[in-house]
């Protein structure tokens, strides 16, 4: 049937997936129809939720997104940034290192 992609161990049919997604979205709207329709405009019910901080501190800049992740991995990021120096010498140096490693592995492995 159309749209069926075989991957050797399974299959994937995006048309069937889209049709079922559409049906599920219709179901979700149907359930939402029975909810509370009234709200009080102008109070806190219409403000975006910022996990407790005041909405006037928005917008959150890109520097502070995922700050927990970056603080935990700070040591690793310092090491990575020390390797990415930006000097042209080191770019060619890595090229020579990769050639030397592959030559050693291929000559030892070929024996």
């Amino acid at each position, binding site marked *: 049937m159309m749209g069926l992609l075989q991957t050797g161990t399974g299959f994937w049919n995006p048309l069937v997936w889209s049709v079922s997604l559409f049906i599920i979205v219709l179901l979700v709207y149907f359930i939402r129809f029975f909810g509370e329709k009234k709200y009080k405009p102008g109070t806190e019910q219409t403000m975006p939720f910022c996990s407790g901080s005041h909405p006037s501190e928005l917008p959150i800049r890109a520097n502070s997104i995922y700050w927990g992740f970056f603080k935990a991995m700070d040591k690793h990021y310092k090491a990575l*940034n020390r390797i990415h120096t930006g*000097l042209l*010498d080191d770019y*060619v140096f890595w090229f020579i290192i990769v050639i030397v490693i592959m030559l050693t592995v291929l000559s030892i492995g070929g024996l």
Partner: protein
Amino acid sequence: MISQFPLLAALILVIIGFFAITLKKNLIKIVMGISIIGSGVNLFLISLGYKSAGVAPIFTNAPKLEMVLPIPQALTLTNIVIDLALVAFMLSLVILLYKHYGSLDIRNRRLKG
């Protein structure tokens, strides 16, 4: 061993060129390193086609001897022209970089990380 000498010289030139690119911090010395590697590869290609007691591969009024292989000479000519274009472009970038930053040191970089 003597007949392998051009190949050895080509290898030494390539190694010297790599030393120039990896260890020097001046932009013009890096461009010179690329030119030296190019010369080494050209020498390697030309010396592949050697036949002992051979003449130049030209047909007009040729003596009845063996000719050296002509294909490496074609490869080398193409490579000389390509290296010319590369070095010309690199040197024009060096001129513009000097006009912007006032120094030829590669440690004077803005893009890192």
